[in-house]
Each structure stands twice: as C-alpha cells, then as structure tokens.
C-alpha cells in the first residue's frame, strides 16, 4: 500500500497483492482508519449497474508510519535480536 503512494486501492486487490485473507485485512484497515493512518472513500462504479466500491490509501502520517516500519527481511531478523518474533 505504501508503494502505491497516493493512489487508491480496493479491498480485494489488497488481499491479492498482500496475500492476506479478508478476515485479516479488514480489521487492519478499520484500525488504521480509526487511528488516522488510512483514508477511505466510496468511488462511483466503473460500469453502470455495479455497486460503488470502497477505496483506500494511506494518509501522510500513514506513509510516515510505513517508512518508519519497513518490511522485515529474513537476514535482518536473524542478525538483529529486536527483529525476532516474540
């Protein structure tokens, strides 16, 4: 999501791109929005007859949060004890 920058993404796209299940994704999105890291908006359907879709993107603070917490790499986790799972 951080890679998309200010672009909007949809829930199912995020599931596929992040390889996460919807049951994990949506609670994360809800919490990020609640804390001001994510903005969401309803977008008009691309084709007539389709429902409006909910789209998401990180806010400026959300992007800062993502930059401050880069994805862990396996080598980094092994070398840095702070990166090991509890």
């Amino acid at each position: 999501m951080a890679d998309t920058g200010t672009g909007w993404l949809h829930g199912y796209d995020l599931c596929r791109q992040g390889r996460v299940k919807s049951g994990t994704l949506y609670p994360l999105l809800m919490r990020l929005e609640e804390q001001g890291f994510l903005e969401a908006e309803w977008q008009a359907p691309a084709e007539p007859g389709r429902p409006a879709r909910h789209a998401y993107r990180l806010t400026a603070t959300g992007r800062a949060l993502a930059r401050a917490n880069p994805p862990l790499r396996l080598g980094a986790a092994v070398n840095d004890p702070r990166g090991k799972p509890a």
Partner: protein
Amino acid sequence: MRRALAGAIVRLAAVILPAPLRDWGRAMAAELGTIERPGAALAFAFGCLAGAFRQAMSSHLHRPRRLAALCAIGATGLGLAYMIAAGAPLSYLATNAAALAIGLLAVGVLTDAGRLWRIGGGAVGIGIACLILLTSLFGVSADGATRWISAGGILLQPDLFLVPVVALGFARTRDSASLLAVLIAALALALQPDRAMAGALAAGMAALALALPGRKVLVALGAALAAFAATLARADASPAMPFVDQIFYSSFGVHPLAGLAVLAGAALMLVPAIAGYVRDPDHRPAYAVFGAVWLAVILAAALGNYPTPLVGYSGSAILGYLISLLGLPPRPAARGAGRDGAAMQSEPEAQQPDLRASLAGAG
C-alpha cells in the same frame, strides 16, 4: 449456489459488525461483487465473517452483557443449524428463534435489573424463588417430575430461567433476603426434582464460596448441595426428547459439522464468563457464578436427559441464558487506563509511529 451463500455470509458479517463499523460491511459486500470466481468469493466472504466476528467480540468485551447477548445469538444460531441438519420440526425452530427474540427483548426492557435488585433488595429474589416453588407444587407433572408450566400451549420450564437469576442475585448482594431466595429455590428444586438445575445452583454457590467465602455463602452452598443430593436420591425417569436432549452425542450421528456446531455453541455460552473473569477482576464472583451455573447445565445435558441450553423444546434455556446475563455487570469496573496496550500509551509514545502498536488487536 456458492455465490448466493457468499452473499449471505457477507450480509451476516455486516450485521455482526458493531454499529460504527457497519459501513465496512457495505464495503465488503461491494467488493464481493467484483470477484469473478465463486470459490474465491466464498473464501473472501468467510474471511469477512471471521474478521467481523473478531471485531464484534473485541468491541463487546467492554460491555459484558452485550458480549453475552452476542454469544446467545451465536449459540442459538448454531443450535438452529443443528436442528435444521437433524430435520427437527419447524415448530421447534420457530420456538427457539422466538425464545431468542423474547429474551433479547426482555434484556432490552430490563437493562436496569441490577438497580431493581438493589432497590427491592432480596424481595425480588424471594418472589422469583417462590415462582419456582409454585411450579414444583402446582406445575405440570410428567414421568415423576413436576417442573413445567403450560403457557399458551407451550410447556415452559421456569427453573431454567429463574434459578440463574436467583444465584446471580445472591452473588450480587449476599444479604439475608437473597439467601432466603436461594434456600427457597433449593427446596423447590429438591421437590421437583430437577438434578440439572439443582446441580447448577450448587455449582454456582460453590463458585461463589471459592470467590467470596462467608457464612451466608456457605449456608447457601450447603442448602444447594442438600437439594442436589436429594435429586440424586430420587429416580429421574424423564425420557430423552428428540432433537433436544442428549444431542452432544446424537448430533455427530447427524453430521460431524452438526456435532461441531453443538459443541461450539455450548463453548460460546461460556465465553462471557471467561472473558469477564479475565478482564474484570472486580466482578469476578458474578462471572464465576454465571460460568459455573451454565457449565453445570451443559454438563447435565451431556450426562443425562436434560435440555441442552442452546436448543430446547420450549426455548426455556435460551430465555434463561439471556435473562441471567442481567446479573452480569453492565460494564467492567473502571481501573485507570485499562489493559489495552493502545489505551495505556502515554501521549509522547503515541506520537511515535510504531506499526506494531497501531495494529495491536487488529487480529
């Protein structure tokens, strides 16, 4: 078929979500419409349901009665699923669904029952216990037991919804009048006889004695144990009701998923007691009594021909479970900042962008 099922599941997820998050349910439903493959749509829908359930549980943990009501809805739903799989008559399904609706309505109307109990003292408890006694003396008899009343053609078992109230009322006040209510209820259960509810009362009083030992509590425990012993000494020849009694075993014969639904429903009924006991130390006695009473009812259903709480011939146990949640505190006692990691963060810490803290509790 799979797409229709996926749609129904996502709609259920939207209903389960706490009110401030309902828009997210609409978002899930809209997203579902864009998924081409039915299998992927179904997997997406199940994920949404699991996520919504976690959100609902997390939200309602701060409202013990709401959590218990949610568990009652879930348990009754699982009970209905079992009944459908077992081919139970439609009237059974309607009765159980109606019991759930009436119970939820009663809980809504009597939300301030705790205050009523404080104002009325144990007089309310004595009145309730006398209703159990009247049932024992003048109720409908069958197979040597007198524990039912006929209401509009439906046989109700009042002790299933009145005994937990008496036990929780005593746990709340522990005054002389509430003790008298327990003694009357114990006598009534011995007279009926009803091993399951006498055992439930004894289990509730034992839990209270462990949490808050005292003279009155020990007297109540003694009376409840004596009543339970009396019911054990008397023959209980009630046959198993089809689709209702002994279903912990028979449900697996219907289908393994039906059996799992019954087990999951029974486990769900204990969630409020466990969650409250862990999260709300100041009200542990009430949660201990609630948990002990319903665990005993569940065990009785597993061991003998007694109603399984999440399904019933008349829905009395469903009604009882919902009414008994009025004995739980409306919300946990205030304990400073609380236990949630996010809530305990100091302001300067909260300003630091920490992904783990931000996502804690999200699932």
